[in-house]
């Protein structure tokens, strides 16, 4: 949509005004998030830019909020070394056995080792304990919703499913019902059955909240799945389990992973339900941030926010790569 050479003056003015307008709206979307990143490096305990910061004086910046956030407990160095070692070992094993040059095991090993090492033995700190709780809850909840959700999505995509609409409505409902209502209901019901205030209560509730995302993404991937492939596999003598793991799973894997990422972020970012269903022992990172925002707001929260922004950027990039891969696998051009 370029500007044609014959455009009148009015059209030109409108053309540029409109773009400036959209630019301002996009600025409104992005600026709040971008602004808090430099603010998190503030050397003072203020929530605005100090004159030193505006003058780009190094004195005005510091990492003290990050030091407050991460603390100095745990053994990140040891964890990193061990994780890196395991990663390299796996890489070497794969390299010699299959000639694979995929460096994913090394990266994954290093990152996981670093995180686990940092979390190891952390008890009762202001920010690391909630982060640890989040990391203990979110993966388990994700695992439950992904495994059950993928199976059900495959079932739902078959051609003859009785009560398909009703079943779909029930499974999507955790996404539709306002969180405060889910939280209230779960609080009442889980207190009755003794799950309120327990780790498993939080995990189960988060798994329930993540399920719609898995169902939606996996069902969407299965729409493009060629059912004749499974018939071909069966024709050649593979049993349904083998067909599933060798034929269907690799093709729908991008959808499953992105569904899993959605489920993970749902749990990792969730605060309303955990506020009610959890107790002090399950205090998660968003919960700690919420408490901090409501009671005594300290600039450490900006460091926490910046860390979370980095995590979401990584997840966003991963999702985009997965989407492109999925489209490439299905023979569509990326775009």
């Amino acid at each position, binding site marked *: 949509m370029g500007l044609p050479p014959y455009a009148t003056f009015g059209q030109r003015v409108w053309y540029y005004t409109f773009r400036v307008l959209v630019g301002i709206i996009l600025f409104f979307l992005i600026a*709040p998030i971008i602004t808090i990143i430099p603010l998190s490096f503030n050397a003072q305990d203020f929530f605005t830019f100090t004159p030193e910061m505006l003058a780009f004086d190094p004195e005005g910046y510091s990492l003290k909020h990050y030091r407050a956030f991460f603390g100095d407990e745990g053994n990140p160095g040891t964890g990193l070394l061990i994780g890196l070692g395991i990663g390299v070992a796996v890489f070497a094993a794969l390299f010699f056995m299959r000639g694979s040059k995929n460096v994913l095991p090394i990266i994954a090993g290093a990152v996981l080792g670093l995180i686990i090492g940092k979390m190891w033995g952390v008890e009762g700190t202001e920010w690391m304990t909630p982060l640890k709780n989040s990391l203990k809850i979110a993966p388990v909840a994700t695992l439950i919703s992904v495994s059950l959700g993928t199976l059900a999505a*495959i079932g739902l995509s078959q051609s003859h499913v009785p009560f398909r609409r009703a079943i779909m409505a029930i499974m999507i409902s955790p996404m539709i019902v306002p969180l405060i209502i889910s939280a209230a209901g779960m609080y009442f019901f889980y207190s009755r059955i003794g799950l309120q205030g327990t780790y498993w209560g939080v995990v189960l509730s988060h798994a329930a909240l993540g399920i719609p995302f898995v169902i939606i993404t996996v069902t969407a991937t299965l729409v493009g799945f060629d059912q004749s492939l499974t018939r071909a596999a069966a024709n050649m003598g593979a049993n349904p389990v083998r067909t599933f793991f060798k034929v269907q799973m690799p093709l729908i894997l991008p959808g499953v992973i992105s569904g899993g990422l959605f489920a993970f972020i749902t749990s990792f970012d969730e605060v309303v339900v955990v506020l009610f269903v959890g107790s002090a022992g399950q205090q998660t990172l968003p919960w700690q941030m919420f408490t901090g*925002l409501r009671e005594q707001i300290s600039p450490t929260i900006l460091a926490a*926010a910046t860390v979370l922004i980095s995590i979401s950027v990584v997840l966003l990039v991963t999702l985009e790569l997965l989407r492109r891969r999925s489209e490439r696998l299905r023979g569509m051009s990326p775009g």
Partner: protein
Amino acid sequence: MTDATGPIKAADGRPLKASLNRALRREKMRALMLIAPLLIFVLVTFIAPIGDMLFRSVQDDITSRTLPQTVVALDGWDYDSGSPPDEAVYEALYYDMFFAAEAKKHTALGSRLNYETTGISSLFRQTGRALDDMGEDVIEAMEDNVEALDDSAFWAALFLTEDPVDAGNANAALSWATSVADEPVRLPEGLQMSVAGATVFPKAAAQYVAFAAFTHTVDEDVPAEEDPWESVWIAMAQDTSDAGFADRLANYTGPGAAELAPLQEAVAAPLAELSFQAAFLDQDEDWADAEIWGTIQAFSSPYTAGYFLTAVDRELTPAGAQVVEDDVKIYLKLFWRTLWMSLAITFSCILLGYPVAWLMANLPDRSANLIMILVLLPFWTSLLVRTSAWKVLLQQQGVINDLLVWIGLVADDGRLALINNATGTVIAMTHILLPFMILPLYSVMKGIPPSYLRAAKSLGATNWTAFWRVYFPQSVPGIGAGSILVFILSIGYYITPEIVGGTKGVFISNRIAYHISSSLNWGLAAALGTILLVVVLALYWAYDRIVGIDNVKLGG
């Protein structure tokens, strides 16, 4: 399907039709087997809790549970008469209250009824403390004349037995005790209510069984070693005033027959003076107030519409549902505010989202993708992060006010109050929900062929006419989808209003959270939640009609 050789057969010799049907059935079963685990999971972890909440919004059995006999006795009383109920009601109240006070359940009931009529909570608490002293003349007379009653074991021998022949049915007393204590109580293993004792002292036997079961189950003490409550003594004294008591005692051959002989004569005088009504009124004159009794009567049913009435600023009074006074009307106002603020948020999202979506749909893919990333980044950023950003930016000493002061738009001492009010909530939530408007709008606009606009212009339409008469109507489904989505999300929002809304910018969800965690009025929270749920489901149904739930896309 038939020819000369009969029905077509499948390879295994069955009729083809049956064989196909079987295959279809098996396929259905397999699909259901795959779905079943998740379905059960969602039903248990999610649908059951929602059902529980709906149930709680009408369930209100605390009155009928804690004061079972009183509620029954009160049934015949007429609130409109304006007079206090008769002696039988006060007697039932005495026994119910006594037990409830021992089980420490009367204060919970008092707080519950206090939501409806203020003052009941302290009335119950004070009366609960004074119950021990009611009828002390009677008890003194019993102690003075029947010394055996001072012995705890004597009571146990009188009313409890290990002999299966003498064992009586104590279910009525036990279910009454279970109801008041709100947990299952039972007699110690091997002990039963003695029929012989219960024949002579029916009331006292029931009271003693309740006492013994409670002592055994809740206090975990041995009943025969504990002094019975005053209520058991009073019940025994009351039994003596029955016609035929003398004959029954004469026929009684069980333990303590001789010791109990002087009982009837001894308590006759003080018992004649005992009036439960007078005793309660002596404690607090409010017990003569028809309002108190009317409240108890109005909430005596195990199910109530009371919470829903409260949720719409009505109250269930003894005289029926009535509008509450103006200064305590909050819920309709809050619902109304939730609705109009959600509308304001939806409208600002349309206003801001439409140009962005339009530009994205009309730019080449490469630039459109760049904008898409700018839209998706906030979408993917933690809600808490975005809310903290606004909390920081909108403060009086925050970046936005600093900027405005620096530009000179506002004076340093006239900094704008952007937070802890409705403005803060609308700004922050518009920012948070904007991607949910842009994404559906974009996917609809992407499907509008640009040639339509060119055709309109080549037919002589001005830019504005071409847009308004040709492009805009085609983008309306996108506006509808985005609006419903944003509206559904915003009326149920809790976190953002809680943090940036102060008191003037909070939603109904914040009130629900308050009733769950602070005021502990769970029934009201459930009723408010139910109303909100109905609104959301209605909107969801509309959304499904307009867009179709299968078309929900995540992240474009």
